[in-house]
C-alpha cells in the first residue's frame, strides 16, 4: 500500500462523517433558534415582500396602464403643475413632479435597490473573504501590505471619492456598484483576517498541514467553513448599508441617472416638493427605511441565533453581550461612512 493511499483512507474515515453531522446540526440549531425570534421572522417576511414587489413591478405597470417612465401631464398633475395625491385618477400612491405613477416607480426602485444591495454585498464578501484569508494565513509581508491597504480604503473620505469618480466617469449603475463594492470589502477582509489568524493556530490545521495539504486547500476547505457563520452575519448587515449607500449617491445626483427610478433619485427630486406633496417624500422614504431596517433586524437575529451566549433583548434570554461588539464595529464604521 502506498503512502498516498493510506492518506486517502485516513482522511476519508476521519473527516467525511464528522463533517456531515456537524454541518447539519449547526445550521439546524441556528434555524431552530431563529424560528422563535419574532423580529427575525417578521423581517424575513418584509424582505420577501420587497422581493415580490420588485418582481411584480412590470405586472403592476401593465395592470395600472402606467409605465414607470411615462408622464401623465393631464391626469397626473394638478392645475399648478404639481403632483396629485394618493387615490386621484387611479394613481394609488399619487404621482411625482412630472405626473408619473409613484407606486410603479417605487416598485421599479425596489429592483435597483435589491440588485445593487445584493450584488455589491456578494462582490464585497467574495473579495473580502479571499483577501482576509490570504493575509491572515500567509502573514508576513503579504499581510502587512494587505492590512495597510485595508486601512487606507477604510480611511478614505467615501462620499468625496464617489463624487470625484462620478465626475470622472459620469453617473451610471456600473460606477455605483463599483464604488460601493470597493468601499465595502475592506471591513469584511479585516474581520476574516482576524478570525483566520486565530483559526490557523488550531490543532486541526496543524493536522491538515502534517498530512501535506497545500495552503489553498487549508484556507478554503479547512478554514473557510468555520468562517461562514460570521461572514453570513456580516453580509446580511452589509446589504442595508449598500442599499442606503446607493440611495445616498442617487440622492446627491451621482448615482442611478434619471429617468431610471431609484429610491434615492426619487427622493432627490421630492426634496423640492415636500411642501406641496407629502406622499412624494413619505412613500419612497418608507420603502427605503423598511427595507434597511428589515435586513438589519435579520442580521442581528442570525447573529443571536448563531451565538446563544449573546444577549437577546427582544427574545428574552439571560446572557452577556461580550462577543457582540467585535463583530459590530466595522459594520457601524461602514454604515456611518456610507450615510
Amino acid at each position, binding site marked *: 500500500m502506498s503512502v498516498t493511499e493510506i492518506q486517502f483512507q485516513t482522511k476519508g474515515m476521519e473527516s467525511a462523517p464528522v463533517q456531515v453531522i456537524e454541518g447539519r446540526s449547526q445550521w439546524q440549531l441556528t434555524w431552530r433558534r431563529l424560528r422563535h425570534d419574532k423580529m427575525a421572522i417578521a423581517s424575513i417576511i418584509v424582505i420577501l415582500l420587497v422581493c415580490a414587489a420588485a418582481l411584480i413591478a412590470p405586472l403592476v405597470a401593465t395592470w395600472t396602464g402606467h409605465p414607470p417612465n411615462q408622464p401623465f401631464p393631464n391626469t397626473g398633475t394638478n392645475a399648478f403643475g404639481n403632483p396629485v395625491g394618493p387615490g386621484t385618477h387611479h394613481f394609488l400612491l399619487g404621482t411625482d413632479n412630472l405626473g408619473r405613477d409613484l407606486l410603479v416607480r417605487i416598485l421599479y426602485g425596489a429592483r435597483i435597490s435589491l440588485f445593487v444591495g445584493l450584488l455589491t454585498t456578494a462582490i464585497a464578501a467574495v473579495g473580502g473573504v479571499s483577501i482576509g484569508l490570504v493575509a491572515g494565513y500567509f502573514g508576513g509581508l503579504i499581510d502587512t501590505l494587505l492590512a495597510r491597504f485595508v486601512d487606507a480604503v477604510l480611511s478614505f473620505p467615501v462620499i468625496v471619492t464617489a463624487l470625484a469618480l462620478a465626475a*470622472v466617469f459620469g453617473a451610471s449603475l456600473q460606477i455605483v456598484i463599483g464604488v460601493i463594492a470597493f468601499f465595502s470589502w475592506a471591513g469584511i477582509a479585516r474581520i476574516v483576517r482576524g478570525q483566520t489568524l486565530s483559526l490557523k493556530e488550531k490543532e486541526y490545521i496543524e493536522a491538515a498541514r502534517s498530512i501535506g495539504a497545500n495552503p489553498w486547500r487549508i484556507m478554503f476547505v479547512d478554514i473557510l467553513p468555520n468562517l461562514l457563520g460570521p461572514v453570513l452575519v456580516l453580509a446580511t448587515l452589509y446589504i442595508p448599508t449598500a442599499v442606503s449607500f446607493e440611495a445616498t449617491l442617487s440622492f446627491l445626483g451621482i448615482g442611478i441617472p434619471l429617468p431610471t427610478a431609484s429610491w434615492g433619485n426619487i427622493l432627490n427630486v421630492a426634496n423640492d416638493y415636500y411642501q406641496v406633496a407629502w406622499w412624494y417624500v413619505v412613500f419612497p422614504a418608507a420603502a427605503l427605511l423598511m427595507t434597511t431596517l428589515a435586513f438589519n433586524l435579520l442580521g442581528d437575529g442570525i447573529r443571536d441565533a448563531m451565538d446563544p451566549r449573546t444577549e437577546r433583548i427582544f427574545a428574552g434570554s439571560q446572557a452577556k453581550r*461580550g462577543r457582540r461588539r467585535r463583530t459590530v464595529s466595522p459594520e457601524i464604521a461602514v454604515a456611518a461612512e456610507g*450615510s
Partner: protein
Amino acid sequence: MNMLRFMIRRILSGLVVIWVVTSATFFLFFKAVPEAAVARNLAGKAASPAVLQQVAKNLGLNQPILVQYWHFLARLVHGNLGKSYYLQEPVTTVIKQDLPPTVSLVIGGVTLWLIVGLAVGILSATRARSIFDRISTAGVLAGVSAPTFVVGQLLLLIVFLPLSKTGFTWVSQTPASIGSGFGKWSGYFFLGWVTLAVVQAAVYTRLSRGSLLDTLGEDYIRTARSKGLSERRVLYRHALRSALTPVVSQLGVDLGALLGGVIVVEQVFGIQGLGFQTVQSIARGDTPVVLGFVVLATFFVVVANIVVDMLYGVLDPRVRIT
C-alpha cells in the same frame, strides 16, 4: 520623552496620509477635467482657439502634469491652495467664506449626538432589560438603518412644515450665523444638528450601553461596591471612565465619516457651506476648490485622530502610549 516620540511619529504618519489622499485626488481630477474643457468653460463658447490657449496658459494648464503637481505641492507647503477657476478668488478665501456654516453644523451636531448617545446608553445599561432599554434598542436599530438624507427629509416634513404653518418661527430656513444672535443661529442649524445626531447617536448608544454593561460585570466594580461606595460614585467615577474607551475610538472613526454626513445635510437643508460648495465645484470641474476641501478635510481627520489617541491615555491609565 515617550510621549514626544509618539507625537512625532503620529504627526509624520498623518502628513503621509494627507499627502497620499491629496495626490490621489489631484491625479484623479487631472484625468477628470481636461484642460480644454476648463478653458472653454471659462472663456465661453465663442472664444477663438488663441483665447483658449491663453486661458489655459494663464492657469498653468498647458504644463506637463508632473510640473503642475510639483507646483501644487510647493504651494501647499506654504499654505497656498491656489486660485479657483471660476470664482476668481484664492481657494483659501473661498474656504474662509464657506467654513462658518459647516463648523456650526459640525460642532452642534457632535455635541448633540454625544450627549444623546451617551445619556441614552448609560440609562439603558443601568436599567438593562427595562421598557426604556427595549424602546431605545429599537430606536437604535432604526437610527442605524436610516440613511442621513431620509432622516433630514422626514424632519423637514414632520417638524419644519407643521411648525412654520402654525407660525412658530424659531426653526427657520433663513441663513443665520452666530453673529446674528444665538436664537436665530440655533434655529437655522437645529434640524441639521438633529439629523446628524439621530443617525450617529444610535451608534454611540449601542457602543456605550454594551461597553458599560461589560465593565459593570468586572471584579473591580464589585470591589468598589463592597467598599460601600454609592452606586453613583461606582458608576461615574469607576465604571464610566474605562467604558468610554471604545466610544472615544469610534469618535475618531466617525469624524472622517462626518464629512460625508455634512455634505448630505447641507444638500438637504440648502445650507451654503463647504460641502455644498464642494458638490458644486465638482460639477463645474473647479479642481483647486475640490483639492482644497480634500486637504482641509483630511487634515481635520488626522488631527482629530491624534487627539483621540492621546485621550485614551487620559481615560484609561492601563493604555500605554508607545
